[in-house]
Each structure stands twice: as C-alpha cells, then as structure tokens.
C-alpha cells in the first residue's frame, strides 16, 4: 500500500463560510488523498456547518478526486447526541470513522473506521474490532513507537489501514464540561458559541506565563504542534499506511504540500522542516510521544529512539 | 539534596508542644533507636512498600522543636536519630511542620491526607520518596503512634491521647478559620 496523506477532521468551530472556503481550497490545491469531515467535538455546533453544508462540501471534494470519510462525535451523553449518532451510524454511501464506542453497537458487521479518539492500544483490541468490521485505524497521538510498531504489524496482517497524526495540535483530553464556556463564566447550555473566537483553540498559560495547553470546547489539546516529518520513513517501515495532517488556520495548502513532498521522497526532511517553520506557526513543534518521551518534548532527529 | 527551607509561616508562632523538651540528644537517641527497631520488627512488610526509597535518608523537621529527626528506613541499616538543627546531614527529602501536624501524619488513626499537601506540612526534595514513606507508614498493622506510646506504658498512652486531642483541636481551629 502506498503511503497516503490525509486531512483529519477540523476540530475547531470556524464560521461556516470559512470552512467552505477552506475545503474548496483543499479540493483544488491540496495533495491529500482523503479528507475527514464532520463535527467531532460538540453536538451544539452541527447546525452551522454539518447540517447545511457537509454533503455539498463532501461532493465538491469527491469531484476533485478526494476520498471523503465522515467522523462521529467523540462524546455522546444526552438524548439529542444519541439520536444523531444512531442516525449517523445507519447512513450509507460513505466511509464512517467512529470516535465513540456507542456507534460500534450499530456498526457491527458493516465496514467502518476507528478514529483517533477511541482507545486502541494493542494488537488484540485492533484484531477484535477488525473482526467486527473495522477496516482502518487512526492511532492515538500518545502512542510510543513501540506500540505503533505492534499495531502496524497487526494492521498489515489484517489488511487494515493504519493512520498516524503527523501535524497539528494533539488531542489530550475530553470532558463533559465545556472549558471554553467556563473561561467566559458561562455554562455549556448557554455558551453562545464562544469557542468560535479561537480558531486554533484557546491558549492556557501557566501562572508564570508559559503557554501550556489549548482548549477547544470540551477538548483539551497540546499547545505544541506535532511535527512528525522526521519520522515518516520510520513509520512507513513499521506498517503505518496513512499520515494525518490536522486542520489549523495556518496555510494548510503549504503544510499538506510540504508533507506530501517529504512523504513521496521528493523533498528532504531538513528542507521540509525548514519550510514548515517558515509558515509562521506561533507555537513550538513537538514529537515526544512517539519517541517515548513527554509529549511536549521536541527530540532532535539524531537522538536514539526511547 | 536540598537546602534549608525559608518559611515565615512555619517559623515563629506559639509553640504547640506541651513538654517543652530540649532533651539532650545522647539521652534521646537510644530511645529513638528502640522505637524504630521495634516498629521494623513488627512490620517487616513495610519496607517492601518503600522500594528503592528504603535507602534514602529523610529529615523530619518539627519546626517548633529544637531538634530534627533523621530517618533511614532501611531494614539492613536502620537509622533513626535526633540531629542538631545547626548541622544538617545529607538527605533526599525533608518534611517540615509543627510537631502536632507531623504526629497526625504518623498516626494512622487520623487522616493526614488533607494535611499532607496543605501548607501546614512542607515537603522539599524528592516528593516521590516522601509519598512512598507516607504510604508505607499507613500500611503498618499497629499504628506507629500507638506502638510508641505503648512502649512507655500508661503514661505513654496518656501522652498520646493528650497529643491527639491537641492535634484534633488544632485541626478544628484551622477549619473554623477558613
């Protein structure tokens, strides 16, 4: 299987027009092969984009030759969310990526993908899910290389896709509480969509003013951006088939082009990393998880893998 | 190895210890030695819980007393003695607090958790070693404070009850003031 570059789901609450423009540009200009669409974080956001524009955007991307996968919510508690998820699980005609176990109840025996917010840590869990119809696994960002290796090998044996996030803020935690609303002294029910003010997440700094985490509604992400460019070759060699870039407000056409060039071997890692750093991304790059270190670490390429 | 902590909150203030004891160390140390050997003999499993930290030296610092206690909870090389405040031996961690608060921590009949991470006790150095010691002490069968009191017969038990009441009252006063 040739290595493929994918665009993960947009985790943030951008205005619908911005999302439409964004995906139009991806359709026309980005080399990604697969685009994941659909609200993952908050069910309250769906009326703005998903309910009105999702199918059109998907068709537009497909016309441009992209494969489109629809993603499920990550947290499912209230009745409305449960109903939406059930309907979502029953839809036909598109690949579905599951981010909450509840969807697995409905999808047994039908092909589906396992999202990067579901806990698949070992090859036996992978095999179990594959036995029920999972065809593709997006791995958790916190997995060290040793675990990715085991999952990559199993994935090859089972003939399923194995995908790893290589760019963008890493999802670190989910909650029932909306931390965006909380920062503005509101409740989740009365949030007034204040998360829309932070298109790459709201930065939390420590008391001594060091940027630490970012908040996106119920989700907490890293402050640092994953940049796994130096590990693409290594990942390919241990069975990773798909490489996921996550949407941010930086120049994503440039980001996906750089990763595509490096992935295809047309550009060296040094040049790619240098170009990525010219894009003005206002946060450090991190790669510690894969290297078996603290996730916020940046481990230079020459360093031995832990 | 850590340096002397500076805390305006812990130094000064009324002394809560009722016996006012600048005991000569040469009298005190044989008693401490007896105490720690007895506890060790009664609770051999306790040391397993300490893992690698059994070889560590801990400094227990009752800020309202003139001396400090020096502990190495190593079954092969047990050490527990009073040391002079002016000449501190090397240690991996230091636990500072008022005598009654430290007693509460050692006394498994009382819940010292809230105390442990409050300002009333200050941990410097290797936090993991201290947490480990705390968990090990909590697992001994006979509460250490009682074992010690029993060694001194009825007067010992009387003193422990007195101290426990004093510690409880101190906790209540703190609770009322917040």
């Amino acid at each position: 299987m040739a290595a493929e570059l994918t665009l993960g789901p947009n985790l943030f609450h951008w205005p619908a027009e911005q999302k439409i423009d964004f995906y139009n540009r991806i359709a026309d200009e980005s080399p990604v092969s697969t685009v994941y669409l659909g609200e993952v974080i908050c069910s309250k956001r769906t009326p703005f984009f998903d309910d009105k524009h999702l199918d059109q955007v998907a068709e537009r991307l497909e016309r441009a030759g992209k494969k489109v996968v629809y993603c499920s919510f990550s947290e499912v508690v209230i009745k409305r969310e449960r109903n939406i998820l059930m309907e979502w699980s029953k839809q036909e005609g598109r690949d579905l990526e599951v981010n909450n176990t509840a969807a697995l109840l409905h999808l047994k025996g039908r092909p589906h993908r396992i999202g990067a917010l579901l806990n698949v840590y070992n090859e036996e869990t992978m095999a179990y899910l594959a036995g029920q119809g999972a065809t593709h696994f997006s791995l958790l960002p916190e997995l060290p290389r040793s675990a990715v290796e085991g999952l990559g090998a199993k994935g090859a044996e089972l003939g399923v896709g194995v995908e790893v996030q290589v760019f963008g803020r890493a999802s670190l935690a989910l909650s029932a509480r909306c931390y965006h609303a909380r920062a503005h002294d509101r409740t989740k029910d009365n949030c007034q969509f204040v998360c829309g003010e932070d298109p790459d997440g709201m930065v939390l700094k420590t008391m001594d003013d060091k940027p630490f985490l970012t908040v996106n509604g119920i989700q907490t992400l890293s402050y640092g951006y994953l940049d796994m460019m130096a590990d693409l070759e290594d990942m390919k060699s241990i069975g990773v088939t798909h490489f996921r870039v996550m949407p941010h407000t930086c120049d994503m056409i440039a980001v996906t082009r750089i990763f595509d060039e490096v992935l295809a071997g047309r550009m060296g890692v040094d040049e790619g990393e240098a170009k990525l750093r010219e894009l003005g991304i206002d946060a450090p790059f991190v790669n510690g998880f894969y290297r078996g270190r603290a996730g916020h670490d940046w481990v230079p390429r020459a360093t031995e893998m832990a | 190895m850590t340096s002397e902590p500076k805390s305006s909150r812990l130094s000064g203030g009324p002394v809560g210890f009722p016996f006012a004891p600048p005991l000569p160390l040469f009298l005190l140390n044989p008693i401490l030695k007896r105490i720690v050997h007895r506890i060790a003999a009664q609770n051999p499993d306790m040391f397993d819980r300490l893992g690698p930290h059994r070889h560590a030296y801990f400094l227990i610092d009752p800020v309202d007393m003139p001396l400090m206690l020096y502990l190495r909870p190593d079954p092969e090389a047990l050490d527990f003695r009073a040391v002079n405040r002016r000449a501190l031996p090397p240690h991996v961690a230091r636990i500072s607090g008022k005598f009654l608060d430290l007693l509460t921590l050692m006394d498994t009949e009382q819940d010292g958790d809230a105390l442990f991470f409050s300002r009333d006790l200050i941990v410097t150095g290797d936090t993991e070693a201290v947490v480990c010691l705390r968990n090990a002490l909590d697992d001994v069968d006979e509460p250490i404070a009682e074992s010690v009191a029993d060694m001194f017969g009825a007067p010992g038990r009387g003193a422990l009850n007195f101290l426990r009441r004093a510690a409880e009252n101190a906790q209540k006063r703190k609770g009322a003031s917040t």
Partner: protein
Amino acid sequence: MNAPVKPELICPAGTPAALRSAVDAGADAVYCGYQNATNARNFVGLNFTPEEMEKSIRYAHDGGTKVLITLNTFPPSGNVQLWKDMVDLSARLGADACIVADIAVAAYIQKHHPDMRIHLSVQAAASSPEAIEYYVREFGVKRVVLPRIMTVSEIRGLVEEIPCEVETFIFGNHGLMVEGRCSLTNYVTGQSTNMDGACSPAACVKYERAEDGSMSTILGDYMIDRFGPEETAGYPTICKGRYKCDARDGGYYAFEEPISLNASTMLPELINAGVHAFKIEGRQRSRAYVKKVVAAFREAVDSIMAGEEPKLADLVALTEGQKQTEGALKTKKWR
C-alpha cells in the same frame, strides 16, 4: 421502573491495612489492584503484591466482603501478557470480579475465565446506553461504573435502558476529564495514565517557595498552580490547576476547582433511581479516611433502607480541598 435494591457499598483500598479497615467498617466490596501498570492508580508505595492480595481476599471473604480487582488500564502493544497474567492470578486467588477498560482484556476474561464477573471500569468511558450495551453484548459485562458526568435523572433513564448493573461514585476526588480519555500527564511527564496508570506522578512533583511566601506546585516543566502565603496548597494535578487565558484577568481554575464529590444528600434519589452500587473514591487516601468514610456511608445506606433519616457525619474534613460538591449528579449546569 425497577424496585429499589439495597446498593452495595464499594470501598477503596490502596494497602492491605486499608482493605482490612474497609472490611471492618462494613464495606460490601473492596476494590484494589496490583503494584504495576495494570492498575489505574499505579502510585508509589501503594497497591498489592500477589501474596498480599491472596491474604487480603481471604480476610475480605471471611468478613463477607467481595474483592473487585482493578485491571483498568490499557495494555500497550507488546505488553498485553502482563494484563492477562494479572487476570489469571485474580481468578486463581478467587477475586469476585475484574474491573476492566480495554477490549483485549475483557475479551480474554470472557474467553478464558467465563465465570469471572466483568465490571466495566469508568476508564472505558461508557456514558450512554448504547456504549454500555455494546460492552454487555460483546463481553457479557455484568456491571458498569458510570463516569462522574451524569445527572441523577440521566442515571435513572440509563438504569431502565441497560441490561446490566450500574455503579456510581458518591464520594471522593472529583476528576473532570473523561476518565480513560486523558493523556495530559503523558504530555507533561512521559508517563501515561492509560498505559502506565500514572496521574501526576510524585517523582515529577516539586514544591517551590518564593521570597514573598507564595508557593508554586510544579509538575515536570510546568507550574500547575501558585498559592498565596495564606492559601491552602494542593497536589499538582493538571486538571485541578490554575492557569491564565486571554479572556480573563489572572489565574483561574480552567478545568475544575480542587473540590470533592460528596453525594451523601442524594443517596435516597440514587437508590430510587435503581443504582446497584455506590463507589467511594480514594485508593491513594489514608486508612483513616477509608475507615471514617466507609463507616459513615454504611450507616447512611442502612438508615435509608430502614426508612430512617440518615445521620451523616460531617465528611467535609475528609475531602481534599475542604470543599465539596454534588458534582454533575444534581444539575447539568455543571457542564
């Protein structure tokens, strides 16, 4: 609606001494784990060796108390055997149930120890009837431990819908992140909550005092909170820390205040909702805590079942930050 059953009181034990205290204080069941990564409270100086577990199970069973073993972390690829070994050991020692989160662990128990009860850990984050039904259908889960994010009315609805027993937390640490879906500790320390059972490991904790009397609590390279000279300091758990953001002046508890769950006033409602078991959090807490909290809730549950007004001792002093909340149970405004 189901007729109310008398809920079991499920009590924490971080050490054999705490287990004996819980048994003596009237626990219906005790939950505890081994000294390794299979256990989501894999903290230094805590938990049970196989020998201690054997003795402790005997002690508990002699006292009519069940022992539930926490194997509630996620084995990373290459290390699954350790979790299987702990399952086999637990079965051999006569444990009454295993509390699990990972699909591979659940599947192993179902296949190799079909008589062992599987309780679905809160770490599995099954917060909807569909998610729970999935685990019941696939692995024959007998009981689910609910995340601390549901209101009583949501719990009532859920009890009616799902084909297994329900266990809810009633007291103790009030974690806010969905358990089993948090890698904050790994981001800061390189030790994973899900894979290693670590949460703000003490080895990475430092307390630093400044000249002005303030104290900072540090985890790894990050200041988790800074306390003024008169403030009570806390342990640096990332989701209980104070941070700054552009929307606010000064530091604030971005996730949750250091507050403890105390659902004692809601016990009658929870019993009416059909909850099968009440869980007390605190395997990292002292034996004295276990003894007092278990005794207080034992009396409360017994009184309510006897139709009497429960006389709950004041449990506030045992809560970590000396503040308490009914958490999500009372209102979804909490979200």
